[in-house]
């Protein structure tokens, strides 16, 4: 990214009419989603898959079919990273550009793809065969570096395996065939496991140990909705996505709203860099998840649910579709579930399209409604007026899974695990510089030291807890406990050893927030760009001692005035490292000698003038003789 600003010349592709064949295809795609504007993301994804871009003429056609204006369609199409307003290759390779990938030779992998395909990152080959891109964390930090090749995932890449994959693609091999010659004969579950390892390192009592099928749902159906809510509330279960709101209370608020409809939405948009726990639950416990959503539906009186799957996990789409279909055929979804008269509930799968912000509750709802992933104004809260204005419960994958287990084993069983205020077990996604990256299901309350011993990361000098929106801690904080009240985390634990450059990590995380800010509010849209630029100054050794105060001051404004959780936490990589690694900053600052800003470089400032004049500057060019 340059300075984060567009340099368009304002010229758009010509608005030519669609050829009749394409017009028919677009009309069919819109028709498949009932010409419903609320299904805009599905429509645009389908068009993108079919044509590899959303052309201006296509947007006109979609607008006509869904009774929107063209600018409304363009607003959505231009928001999501996986939708494109310029033509992309038939095969789009998205290299995961997370800091963990960068520390696992992403550079070598990128070079291999670039060399074989003859294009650089950001380019599309002249024959329209390939596009090469980078994308933020795709949830594979335990097996980095990773890449998406259209809808499939390659993990644990090396320059050598990347080269052979690129060569195979170059010679016409279908992306699926890279996974297996027998891809079409494999079950969805086998396909997922051939692409991505689960890396379950420690199974706990709640989720990854043995789980009897639908035992919680059976018990829930013998209870009243109020009893279900009471039980979930008594268990002490709190949201596992990061914010930690009490689940029972959320359900109670939604249930107490009188409305024509209620909705249950599962947030499977885990985008926090370093988080990949939901990926494992979706692969290994999809029935438990749907069971939990069904119990929630019973508790709040919802008939419809949505499972919002992040676009990066598209490789799990057919697995989830199959589970939903299987449950419908067994009477576990649909009408009169398990023979319970009048209990109707079904779920649709909604795929995202590359936008971290959609993990935010309101933005997720906006996205489900076919809009750009912009957070909603609160109040009203989703439990009062959420999806399409109806009371809506939005919970994380892990939260629903826990709820199903609580209904089976009882509130006290869950409440007894963990610590005061942080009950039950938690899935930790551990990656980075440790011997055994992967998923650990542990009760709340372990210290960081204990966790590092378990994962083989005792050499750590820094640990990022809760991803970039969490905190970076140093060894003097490793005695602290993993609980909501001490080291809170949605699950991401990223371990860094003494070789790693803290400023480089911080700069990466700021670039992530700049990329992922929705842009709705001023402080998050603009302020994060300034923070990233300021960190770059430190990296280049051009910062003054006063710049440390500038970082704190600007961070304060962004946190205080931002509209949603993204901006309220995006300065955390800077603030937590300023607090826990102060020497990293103070060691590189230099007082300015004469009050001149060190960032001002006269040579680069006059470069464009020099080009226009086609001669050197008499005053500023060092070599006066020419």
């Amino acid at each position, binding site marked *: 990214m340059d300075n984060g600003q*567009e340099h368009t010349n304002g010229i758009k592709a010509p608005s030519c009419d669609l050829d009749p064949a394409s017009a028919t295809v677009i009309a069919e795609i819109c028709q498949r989603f009932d010409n419903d504007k609320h299904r805009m993301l599905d429509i645009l994804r389908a068009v993108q898959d079919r044509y590899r871009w959303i052309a201006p003429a296509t947007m006109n056609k979609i607008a006509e079919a869904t009774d929107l204006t063209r600018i409304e369609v363009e607003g959505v199409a231009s928001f999501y990273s996986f939708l494109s307003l310029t033509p992309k290759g038939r095969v789009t390779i998205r290299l995961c550009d997370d800091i963990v990938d960068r520390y696992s030779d992403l550079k070598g992998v990128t070079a291999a793809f670039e060399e074989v395909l003859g294009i650089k990152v950001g380019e599309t080959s002249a024959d329209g065969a390939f596009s090469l891109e980078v994308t933020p964390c795709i949830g594979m930090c335990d097996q980095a570096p990773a890449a998406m090749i259209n809808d499939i995932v390659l993990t644990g890449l090396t320059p050598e395996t990347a080269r052979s994959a690129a060569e195979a693609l170059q010679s016409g091999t279908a992306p699926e065939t890279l996974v297996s010659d027998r891809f079409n004969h494999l079950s969805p579950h086998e396909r997922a496991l051939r692409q991505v390892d689960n890396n379950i390192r420690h199974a706990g009592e709640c989720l990854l140990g043995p789980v009897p099928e639908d035992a919680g749902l059976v018990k829930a159906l013998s209870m009243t909705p109020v009893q279900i809510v009471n039980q979930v509330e008594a268990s002490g279960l709190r949201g596992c996505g990061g914010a930690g709101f009490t689940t029972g209370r959320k359900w109670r608020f939604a249930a107490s709203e009188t409305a024509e409809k209620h909705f249950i939405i599962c947030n499977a948009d885990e985008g926090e860099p370093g988080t990949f726990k939901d990926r494992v639950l979706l692969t290994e416990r999809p029935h438990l998840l749907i069971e939990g959503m069904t119990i929630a539906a019973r508790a709040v009186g919802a008939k419809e649910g949505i499972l919002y799957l992040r676009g990066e996990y598209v490789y799990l789409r057919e697995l989830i579709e199959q589970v939903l279909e299987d449950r419908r055929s067994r009477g576990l979804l649909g009408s009169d579930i398990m023979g319970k008269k009048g209990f109707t509930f079904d779920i649709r799968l909604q795929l995202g399209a590359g936008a971290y912000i959609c993990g935010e509750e309101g933005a997720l709802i906006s996205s489900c409604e076919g809009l750009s992933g912009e957070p909603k104004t609160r109040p009203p809260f989703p439990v009062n007026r959420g999806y399409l204005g109806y009371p809506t419960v939005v919970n994380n994958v892990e939260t629903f899974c826990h709820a199903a287990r609580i209904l089976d084993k009882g509130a006290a069983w869950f409440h007894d695990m963990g610590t005061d205020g942080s009950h039950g077990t938690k899935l930790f996604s551990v990656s980075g510089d440790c011997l055994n990256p992967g998923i650990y299901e542990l009760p709340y309350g372990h210290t960081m030291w204990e966790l590092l011993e378990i994962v083989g990361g005792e050499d750590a000098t820094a640990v990022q807890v809760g991803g970039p929106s969490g905190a970076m801690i140093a060894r003097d904080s490793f005695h602290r406990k993993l609980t909501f009240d001490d080291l809170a985390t949605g699950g991401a634990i990223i371990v860094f050893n003494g070789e790693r450059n803290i400023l480089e990590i911080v700069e990466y995380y700021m670039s992530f927030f*700049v990329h992922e800010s*929705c*842009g709705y509010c001023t402080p998050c849209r603009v*302020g994060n760009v300034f923070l990233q630029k300021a960190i770059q100054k430190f990296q280049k050794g051009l910062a003054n001692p006063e710049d440390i105060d500038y970082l704190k001051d600007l961070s304060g404004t962004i946190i205080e005035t931002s509209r949603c959780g993204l901006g309220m936490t995006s300065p955390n990589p800077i603030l937590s490292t300023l607090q826990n690694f102060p020497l990293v900053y103070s060691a590189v600052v230099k007082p300015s000698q004469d009050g001149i800003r060190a960032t001002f470089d006269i040579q680069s400032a006059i470069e464009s003038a020099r080009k226009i004049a086609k001669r050197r500057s008499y005053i500023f060019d060092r070599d006066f003789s020419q």
Partner: protein
Amino acid sequence: MSDNRRESSFVFTIDGVEVKAFSGQTIMEAADEAGVYIPRLCDHEGLRHQGSCRVCTVKAGGRSVAACTQPASPGQSVDNETASLTKMRRDLVEMLFHEGNHLCPICEASGNCELQAMAYRLDMTEATRFPYLEPCRALDASHPDIALDTNRCISCGRCIRASQDVDGKGVFGYVGRGIHRRVAVNGENLADTDAEAADHAMSSEVCPVGCIIRKRVGFVTPIGEREFDKGLIGHEIEEKRK
């Protein structure tokens, strides 16, 4: 409605001043009626509240909230013009200046510009600390009566809401994400849309800056006699209380 409103009225305070509000009113709506000015840029009378510029950030019950979207609540104590809030608001206004290309001396809106006026109100008189992003956005002069210079756009979206909700048209909309998010038109350029000079969205009161420009009427009001030459932004609201 009026009887109903009266029944559910209550009192809260802004900087110690008692303000009367009705159930469902936002902090800003109640403040405006009571003659207490809360700075704002994206909010405009007669348009839906958006809460995006964040200049109206106030402290209510210890929490920072946008006064334009936050409902007033009984007995609440709201901070508005404190040193720390004014400083944060000034930061936000500076961000908007640095995000676009705002060259007041050559801008036709100078003196009528709410961004400029807000900078004066918030005492933005020292050299700013932020880097300039210096975007390069093409001028759209395709329309016979209106020109768009989006280098001066502050993404307040007032034109979007005015066109949709007042004009019933939808000439404008947001495109892009993050720092690339910006206001665009419903077509190849403005001439390609159904925009008309008489639209509310095109009126000088809707665009707070010099982005939407009426052709052939530039500089009819001399500098010195313009809107904010008469008083600080917000003075009409504050005069209600005097």
